[in-house]
């Protein structure tokens, strides 16, 4: 596993940060981001796929009240692919029984989807050699988050309560002396340890004006906020004997 990995630095792999607005479709946006990234890495072609198609063709009913990433992947397989965002744009509402999958050309399709083992080393290795992975997390600490690496104190951010789905696009470590920029030495702040902090880079779906331009960083190595529970990814390439070597930019 390389020490750092950031798929955002690879040209045309990570699509722009989406904004789910008032539609609870983080599951569809994470799945779409995963398929786009996997397609770009394996097929060397950048596409932006239709989240709206996932919402309209969702097998489980109203996609704007939540969903599961595996449901998105099964919907993609059932429809033999996905239309482009351009042809089938996001409307921010689920229109059940308005599935227009057949109307548009498919720009990407998947062969399968897999769930990775529940360990961060394995997830990091897969991320670095295969590409971004969707994960379920507890979003409790994100409402007031601005920037930096979240390392929940023990007992906070219950790893069993998962209520949000995002896309891991990389990982790294803070420099050993990185501190909060606005840290004022005041009687109320505890001195922070000065060793470097390993972190995951996660792509959210709350627009680019939230967090670190739409991304956030979460401590790596402590199952912070339940990140290891459901690591899921689509497979876009057929299993081949000779593996195509890909590597995540450092």
């Amino acid at each position, binding site marked *: 596993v390389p020490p750092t990995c950031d798929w955002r630095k690879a040209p045309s792999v990570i699509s722009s940060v989406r904004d789910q607005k008032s539609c609870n479709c983080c*599951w569809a946006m994470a799945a779409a981001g995963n398929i786009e990234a996997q397609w770009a890495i394996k097929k060397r072609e950048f596409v932006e796929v239709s989240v709206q198609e996932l919402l309209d063709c969702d097998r489980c009913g109203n996609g704007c009240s939540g969903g*599961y990433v595996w449901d998105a992947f099964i919907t993609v397989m059932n429809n033999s692919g996905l239309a482009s965002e351009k042809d089938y744009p996001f409307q921010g509402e689920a229109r059940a029984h308005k599935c227009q999958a057949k109307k548009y050309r498919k720009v990407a399709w998947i062969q399968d989807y897999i769930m990775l083992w529940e360990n961060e080393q394995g997830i990091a290795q897969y991320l670095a050699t295969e590409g971004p992975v969707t994960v379920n997390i507890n*979003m409790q600490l994100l409402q007031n988050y601005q920037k*930096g690496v979240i*390392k929940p104190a023990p007992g906070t951010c219950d790893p069993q309560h998962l209520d949000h789905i995002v896309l891991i696009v990389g990982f790294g470590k803070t420099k050993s002396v990185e*501190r909060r920029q*606005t840290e004022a030495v005041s009687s109320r702040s505890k001195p922070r*340890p000065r060793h470097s902090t390993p972190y995951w880079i996660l792509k959210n779906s*709350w627009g680019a004006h*939230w967090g670190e331009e739409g991304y956030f960083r979460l401590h790596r190595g402590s199952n912070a906020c339940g990140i290891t529970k459901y690591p899921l990814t689509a497979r876009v390439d057929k299993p081949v004997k000779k593996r195509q070597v890909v590597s995540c930019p450092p």
Partner: protein
Amino acid sequence: QGIRGQDPGPQPLELKEAFTLYQIQYNRSYSNPAEYARRLNIFARNLAQAQQLQEEDLGTAEFGVTPFSDLTAEEFGQLYGSQRAAGRAPNVDRKVGSCERGES
């Protein structure tokens, strides 16, 4: 930006100024004075919560004003949390991809 630079927390007037800046930055408006007062109160609680989160965090995270600072934690969870993905996800050992919600 981050609230850390303020000691020990905004005073009422400062709070109102901070809330006005928030409204301008995130294009927020409220239909009546009561709603405004309620949101101001929620905003104040979120700032206090952010300060506490920053105290507790063991990493380098900074907490403070965000687009969601005028929402209660419940509203935030309902609007942005994927309830289906909430801890009661179906048992994944069972046929992954089922639609039944919460069935044990």
